[in-house]
């Protein structure tokens, strides 16, 4: 366990170096936030049932603040390793390959999230009332939001391992992350907040793992569901987390048997 935590720390520290990149990123995120708020307000008018304009504004800002953990990446080092064949060194280490990648990924995702969310939260909280990020509905909701957010990040990691698996098959990281992110983006409420989708679609998506990454924590924060529903949903996302990790490990194992190392 200690060595996995070491990998986590190493990638956390590596990512935390990129402060200038994070500031420039925050500026970009701020622009997107403003744009989406205007766009959604124009469509929604005074709001839709169960999703007021103020809730939408908060949802958008949270989405921009935690942007780094909403999408899935294939860790950069994994890409180059698969492409140039260095991956064989990972095989000979007495560590589990899945765990090595998983912990490195969570380390860098956590670091880039922590670097980015504070400036967005601060600026969005002092904007004029119509565009302001509101406070969480209640203290218990806030605590559940934090728990759901952490589980969300872990699920993001588990889904990203599927992108790694696809990279193994296609040998193209751009392709595999692109496809996985379209799925996460559409079904997980990144392209469009899930409460804005047709109800019939929502009824299905509410039980899928993709919404657990960011949609669930955000909706707990804005008070879109009561505490009891939130608890049930968090249990569902925990179940998904375990299931995704087990499936991911099995898939990786089966693909490793057929792996051809590229180059040398």
């Amino acid at each position: 366990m200690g060595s996995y935590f070491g990998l986590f720390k190493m990638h956390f520290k590596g990512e935390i170096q990129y402060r200038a990149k994070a500031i420039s990123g925050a500026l970009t995120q701020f622009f997107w936030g403003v744009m989406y708020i205007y766009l959604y307000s124009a469509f929604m008018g005074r709001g839709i049932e169960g999703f007021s304009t103020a809730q939408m504004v908060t949802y958008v800002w949270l989405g921009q603040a935690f942007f780094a953990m909403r999408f899935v990446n294939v860790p950069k080092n994994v890409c180059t390793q698969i492409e140039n064949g260095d991956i064989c060194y990972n095989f000979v280490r007495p560590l589990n390959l899945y765990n090595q990648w998983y912990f490195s990924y969570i380390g860098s995702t956590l670091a880039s999230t922590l670097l980015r969310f504070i400036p967005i939260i601060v600026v969005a909280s002092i904007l004029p009332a119509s565009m302001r990020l509101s406070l969480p509905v209640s203290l218990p909701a806030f605590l559940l939001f934090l728990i759901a957010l952490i589980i969300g990040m872990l699920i993001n990691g588990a889904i990203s391992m599927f992108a790694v698996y696809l990279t193994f098959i296609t040998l193209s990281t751009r392709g595999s992350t692109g496809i996985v992110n379209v799925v996460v983006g559409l079904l997980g409420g990144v392209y469009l907040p899930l409460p804005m989708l047709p109800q019939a679609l929502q009824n299905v998506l509410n039980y899928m793992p993709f919404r657990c990454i960011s949609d669930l924590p955000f909706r707990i924060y804005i008070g879109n569901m009561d505490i009891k529903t939130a608890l049930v949903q968090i249990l569902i996302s925990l179940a998904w987390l375990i299931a995704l990790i087990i499936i991911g490990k099995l898939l990786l194992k089966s693909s490793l048997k057929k792996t051809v190392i590229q180059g040398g």
Partner: protein
Amino acid sequence: MLYNKYFNMHVKSSMQYRLNTLLIAITQVVISLGELATVWIMFKQFKSVGYWGFYETLLMFGIITTVFSFAECFARGYDEFAKLIRTGTLDRMLIRPVNLHFQIFANNIEFSKLGRVVLGIVVSIIALMHLAISWTIYKVLVLISVYICGVVVITGIFMIGAGVSVFTVENLEFINIITNGGKELSFYPINVYNKWLARIFTFILPFACFNYLPISYLMGYGSLPQVIYAISPLVGSLFIIPCVLFFNWCIKKYQSTGT
């Protein structure tokens, strides 16, 4: 002609990795379809924004997807200019007795982007078939100028990004605001946004000149004299002049990174 030689070279090299090029093209089309699905769901749920309906917006989506990907395919050198600086390719280009802009255009051509160009054209045609436009010869000319203006403006935007990266060496993420930000903003009629945002993306970065304004002309919308809407793509294309000047000025200030 020299460009033909370069072009054939790029064709040959991407034919070597046919499957890879095809896979990347398909992925990008899938990503665009994801964006398209978002637009569709918005209108499915909310019917319209003002007097703008689904098919007008679909036409905008088709136009921006076509021109953006077309520019990405042929003006890729500007889009990835930081790479040319870091690898020292720019230094080599500067000592050759051929125009720099020519070399940048010729050096990178990315055929995988053509998948999206095809998607954009198909979407545009579907939208045009559903819109009740009373066609005149002027409207046809305006429609053609829209696509030309779009490619010119996006190329200009890439030049600005390239110019800035002369000083920063890195591709800065906030350049994204004017490239991808402008692109996504152009999926929808620009009047849904705040006045200032709309003004910036009309008068400073003329994205509206190849979608909102000329489409108003095609549909007969809007309160200004129609001729203003009709000539907007021509005026918008002038944007390339300051972009080229800015880029040339940046190149004069260029100091090699020594690699």
